[in-house]
């Protein structure tokens, strides 16, 4: 009984303390405090990740966990900074010789973590394997325009392209592997790179441990060990951070947890627009959805403000196009129409849809019914349930279907869907967000969209030699896509990093790379 009373007192005290401290935004104050302290070397830094990496071979990796770990083990020819610009990595400089030829000068004196020297042979080998169809590299499509990679010298390589390819640099952050050691099947579980850390151990579904390597060419990072703990349960991640077992957790995190953590004085929350979007993919092969008026009405019925504020708590932000805010291609003037139920109703009426006795819209004997599908992500299911409710108010009968990821994406790829709520991640270049999605017969053009003008603009943007020309092409293409509505883009995804109070020097990096840990140190 007394124990129970003690609990109540502690809970009440805790609640009072939480209320007192609520709203105490600590990020700026903490950063200042960090700046005034002297960095110290050493310590083990623990990060929570929701799923284990599939492979740590960067050429084969496609999950975010692997990409995060690999960003500390490997270096690419270039690195992509927070403004999404290519900066020197293993290549110290480069020049475009002509429209289809690029020369790269490599950094000298670099060693892999096994002591082997890094040379042009490693660059050639890395890209040759990626381009080899038998290797089955998931991102091979991004490198398809590369005709050959040849060594001009020990520290010079040349990329020859089959056609001009403007986004090339954005994709050359692929980790370079050692040609003498990366041929075996076990490279996936025993990776060797030129990054600041090397793999110490990998307990499957439990923990990946990296240690600082003495072979790294750059400035010695502060942390001597980095542990990636596989914690599928979000609550467990948050608890472990609060307990101090973890030093950092990152997106994806439930929005409600982020809001709670922002009020917790024992942690620091940093937020930034990420490189992902979520959108409704409309299957244009569907008899109902091939009608532009219906798609326009749907667009009017999507309340982006409500979705981002109520469901994502303002962490994700409303979006109209696949172009990411804060990048050179983004045009803030391209906006989606505001949520307007009356206008949607009017549009459908003009299109000949009338309500039947059950209150469902119909035209030529066909009712306006839609299946809204997604995979089992609670927030996305909530969006579709909300949308289902709004649609029912205008007489559109909608059904929400949620499936596991493999089933869902197989259905989308086979065009067995009407409206699918999906996302794109890692959009480092607008080409990655548009070319395969909107060109006729593009690899990810699951919706069956075709516009000769968009085809021409996206091709032009790929071959343009200036950023200004590329921007003009992407902005114009985005406006046409926004008019034709194969996609209804809902939101730009936020990137959130939460750290414990003893973590200093962390600059948020929205690319999802963990290379920013090089400047992080731990205080006692």
């Amino acid at each position, binding site marked *: 009984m007394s124990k129970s009373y003690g609990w109540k007192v*502690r809970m009440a005290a805790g609640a009072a303390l939480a209320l007192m401290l609520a709203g105490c935004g600590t990020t700026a104050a903490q950063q200042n405090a960090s700046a005034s302290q002297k960095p110290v070397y050493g310590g083990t830094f623990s990060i929570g990740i929701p*799923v*284990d990496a*599939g*492979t740590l*071979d960067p050429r*084969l990796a*496609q*999950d975010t966990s692997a990409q995060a770990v690999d960003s500390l083990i490997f270096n690419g020819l270039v690195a992509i900074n927070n403004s999404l610009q290519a900066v020197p990595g293993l290549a110290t400089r480069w020049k475009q010789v002509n429209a289809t030829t690029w020369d790269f000068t490599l950094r000298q004196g670099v060693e892999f973590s096994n002591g082997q020297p890094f040379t042009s042979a490693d660059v050639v080998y890395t890209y040759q394997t990626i381009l080899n*169809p*038998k290797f*089955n590299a*998931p*991102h*091979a*499509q*991004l490198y398809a325009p590369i005709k050959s990679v040849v060594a001009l010298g020990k520290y010079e390589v040349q990329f020859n392209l089959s056609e001009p390819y403007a986004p090339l640099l954005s994709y050359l952050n692929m980790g370079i592997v050692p040609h003498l050691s990366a041929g075996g*099947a076990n490279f*996936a*579980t025993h990776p060797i790179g030129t990054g600041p850390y090397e793999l110490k151990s990998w*307990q*499957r*579904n*439990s*923990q990946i441990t990296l240690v600082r390597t003495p072979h790294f060419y750059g400035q010695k990072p502060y942390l001597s060990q980095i542990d990636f*703990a*596989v*914690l*599928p*349960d979000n*609550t*467990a991640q948050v*608890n*472990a951070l*609060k*307990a101090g*077992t973890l030093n950092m957790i990152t997106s994806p995190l439930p929005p409600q947890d982020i809001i709670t953590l922002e009020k917790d004085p024992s942690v620091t929350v940093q937020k930034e627009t990420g490189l992902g979007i979520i959108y409704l993919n409309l299957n244009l092969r569907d008899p109902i959805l091939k009608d532009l008026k219906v798609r326009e009405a749907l667009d009017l019925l999507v309340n982006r403000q409500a979705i981002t504020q109520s469901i994502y708590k303002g962490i994700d932000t409303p979006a109209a196009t696949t172009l990411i805010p804060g990048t050179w291609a983004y045009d803030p003037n391209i906006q989606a129409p505001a949520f307007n139920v009356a206008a949607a109703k009017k549009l459908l009426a003009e299109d000949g849809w009338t309500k039947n006795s059950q209150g469902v819209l119909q035209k030529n004997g066909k009712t306006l019914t839609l299946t809204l599908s997604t995979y089992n992500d609670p927030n996305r299911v909530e969006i579709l349930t909300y949308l289902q409710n709004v649609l029912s108010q205008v007489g559109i009968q909608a059904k929400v279907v949620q*499936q*596991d*990821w*493999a*089933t869902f*994406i*197989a*259905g989308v*790829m086979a065009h067995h869907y009407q409206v699918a709520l999906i996302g*794109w991640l890692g959009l480092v270049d607008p080409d990655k967000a548009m070319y395969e999605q909107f060109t006729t017969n593009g*690899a*990810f053009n699951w919706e069956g969209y075709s516009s000769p003008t968009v085809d021409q603009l996206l091709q032009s943007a790929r071959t343009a030699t200036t950023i200004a020309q590329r921007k003009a092409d992407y902005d114009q293409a985005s406006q046409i896509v926004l008019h034709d509505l194969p996609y209804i883009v809902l939101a730009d995804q936020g990137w959130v990093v939460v750290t414990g109070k003893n973590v200093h020097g962390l600059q948020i990096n929205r690319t999802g790379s963990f290379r920013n840990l090089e400047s992080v140190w731990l205080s006692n």
Partner: protein
Amino acid sequence: MKRISLLVPVLLGISFVVFLLIHLIPGNPAATMLGTSATPAQIARLDHALGLDQPIWQQFLDYLGRVLQGNLGQSISQYQSVSSLIAYALPNTIELAVVALAIAVGLALPLGVASAVWRNSFFDFASMTFAQIGISMPVFWLGTLFVEFFALDLHLFPTFGIGPPVGTALASLVTGNVGPLGSLLAHVALPALTLGLTGAAIVSRMVRTAMIEVLGQDYIRTARAKGLSSGRIVWRHALSNALLVVVTVIGLQFGYFLGGAVIIESIFAWPGIGRLTVNAILARDFPLVQGCVLVIAALFAVVNLLVDVSYALLNPKIRYQ
């Protein structure tokens, strides 16, 4: 021996059913492995490389041929042999299951027996209420509460993860170093307690029911008439007979701990075979699913065999050929 030989057709049948089911559900391992960045041509190429474009019977026969040679194949999603993945996950699962079972039985036997002996008393009411709560409360909720209280509030246990391997901990013990064993026990405590309490709830109810039935038998009355002590009657004469029923439930519980503790494994980041199986299913990693199910089924069968053997030990009248 006859019973052991029966395992072979059972495992074969399970393999066949699982193989059919996993191939019937939508979703393609090649597409999952390559992600959304892959083109249809890439997926088709990988399908071919993995032999997934072969007729399903051909794929099953190939699989069976490999298994009979002791080769469970290569995981599609984790780039490692299935046997090495299972070899890592299985000891973790067994460790958790054994500790959880010890907690479950250690709590359930005294509670169930006492409830039966003091039937309809306050103790009976209290212990059966505990059992009802244990059965009804979702395991993820119980686990989260334990973390909040024991790990965050009292800082007694870590919130997640596994300690050192059992072998390492025991080897250190020999040299007088108790640290690794302490770490192992601290890590296993909360997941095992969560799992064990739900098991204890079920088993204690079974013990109570079985004991009430046995305590009403004529031979118990005879024992009392002969002047045997209550303790001897309850623990020697009644419980040994009641255990025949209870052991079956304990066996089933142990089987569940071995194969079905997926939620606990997720909450406590315990790298066991349950999570390995679920991840494999989600990734449509056919060889890994097959391997995991085969091992779980074999374990279940072995546990059932041990339960059957224990019948003979508990009741000398039961004899197996």
